[in-house]
Each structure stands twice: as C-alpha cells, then as structure tokens.
C-alpha cells in the first residue's frame, strides 16, 4: 500500500486514509466582481494535467482531517514531498 506523509500528523500513513483534492495553489480572485467570464472559466475549470511533477491538494480525511499540499509524480505515483497548507509551493 502507498504510504503518504501527513505534515500535520508528522508520520507516514496509508493511502486509504487520504482523499485527493485536485490541483494545488489556485488563488481565489482578489476582486471576484471584477472577473470576466473567461477569467471565471480559467479559475473554476481549467486545470493542469502534467506528465510528471504535479502540485496537488490532499486531505487526511480519515486521520487528522487536514488539507495539505503535495508534489506527486503523475507517472510513477511517487510523492516527492508534502507540506502544510499555506506554505509556499515547493
């Protein structure tokens, strides 16, 4: 079973305790009312789908409950690193 390091629990935990939360580091619009339709489309729906290194949100849903960020290789499924939400991208 794949083990994922939870930066809050500070230990490796089994994959089945986690849920993927999609692409990480998507900033909310600072002024939503000024957003045009294409900008909303970009913000809401357009996501990267890289082959290789990918920044993702994960949630330790059946553990501490926290969202955190991870860098995962989409080819090998290897987690390069995980870090707490709010920290800069690695």
């Amino acid at each position, binding site marked *: *079973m794949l083990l994922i390091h939870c930066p*809050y*629990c*500070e230990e490796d*935990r*089994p994959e*089945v*305790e986690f849920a993927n939360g999609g692409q990480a580091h998507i900033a909310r619009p600072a002024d939503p009312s000024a957003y045009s339709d294409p900008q909303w489309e970009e913000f809401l729906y357009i996501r990267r789908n890289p082959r290789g290194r990918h920044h993702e949100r994960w949630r330790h849903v*059946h*553990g*501490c*409950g*926290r969202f955190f960020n991870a860098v995962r290789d989409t080819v090998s499924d290897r987690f390069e690193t995980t870090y707490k939400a709010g920290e800069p991208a690695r």
Partner: protein
Amino acid sequence: MLEIAPMKLSAADLALPAEALVADGVQLALADDYARFSLRARDAAILEGLLGRKLPAKIGETLDGVACLGPDEWLALLPAGTALPLGEGLPVSVTDISSRALGFVVEGPRAVELITSGCPLDVAKFPIGRGTRTVFETVEIVVWRTAEARFHIEVWRSFAPWLWHALAAAA
C-alpha cells in the same frame, strides 16, 4: 436554551447482540456508555482554560479520556452523564456527540490480529494510550489502545452493525 433529550442507544436498536462475543484468544464487546464531546479550538489554551483540564498536545496522543485527533480537534470520552461548559462567546466549539458513535472493546492476545484484519495501521506498534482516527475497510473508526491487549474502537452508530459483524467474522 433548547433542551434536547439524549438519545438512548441500546444493542437491540442497532440489531447488535447484547452479549460479548467470545472467541479463541479474543473477546468483542460493546463498550460502556460514554459522554462524548467533539472539542475544537485553534488555541488549545483557551479550551484548556474553559474545561479546567490539560489536553494532549500531539496528534495521536491521549490524556485522561481525551484523544488529540487533529491539530485543532480532540475527542473526549468521559463517564456517562458528564457535562462540559460550552464556552459561549469563546473561539472554541464544544459539541455533545454522545449518540453519534458507540464503542467496541476488543480484548485478548488476538486483539491486534482482529483489528489489522481490516485496519491498515500497524496497531501492534501502538504504545498504550495512542488513539487515532483511521479506517476499518472503508468505515471510519477511532482506534485507541487502552491496555497491552485491549483496544477501544469508536464507530458511527450507522456503521456499528456492519463493523460488529466484520470483526465477529474475523474472530
């Protein structure tokens, strides 16, 4: 304040056997009634001041019937009937969840084997007193090692019959 009568749970309500299941090397039983509270606070010191008790600081640790489940979340399993101050006006949340879950006690030399039949954590390596949220197959549980050969398992009441039968089958 709105008074809500506590829901009384019995084994029969959940189609659970009232008797403990005794198998070779392991026993599975319903735990006693508890007053259960979900405690939330970003600043644990405010919660500790309100409750007048120390809280475990690290995720997975337990202290006097309280387990630290997350960075701002604790589960309190206190003697039935215990009331806690709700902390109105403070940046904390104290919620009575007594009827949300019920407890199983798994005890005996095969207790670890029974739990690992469906739980992916290495519970054999848990020190006594470690408690954490995890899963049994796909059902969310809290596993708490209360003695060398005894574990307390918290499970939401709607999943309890399934978990009982899964553990009984493994026993």
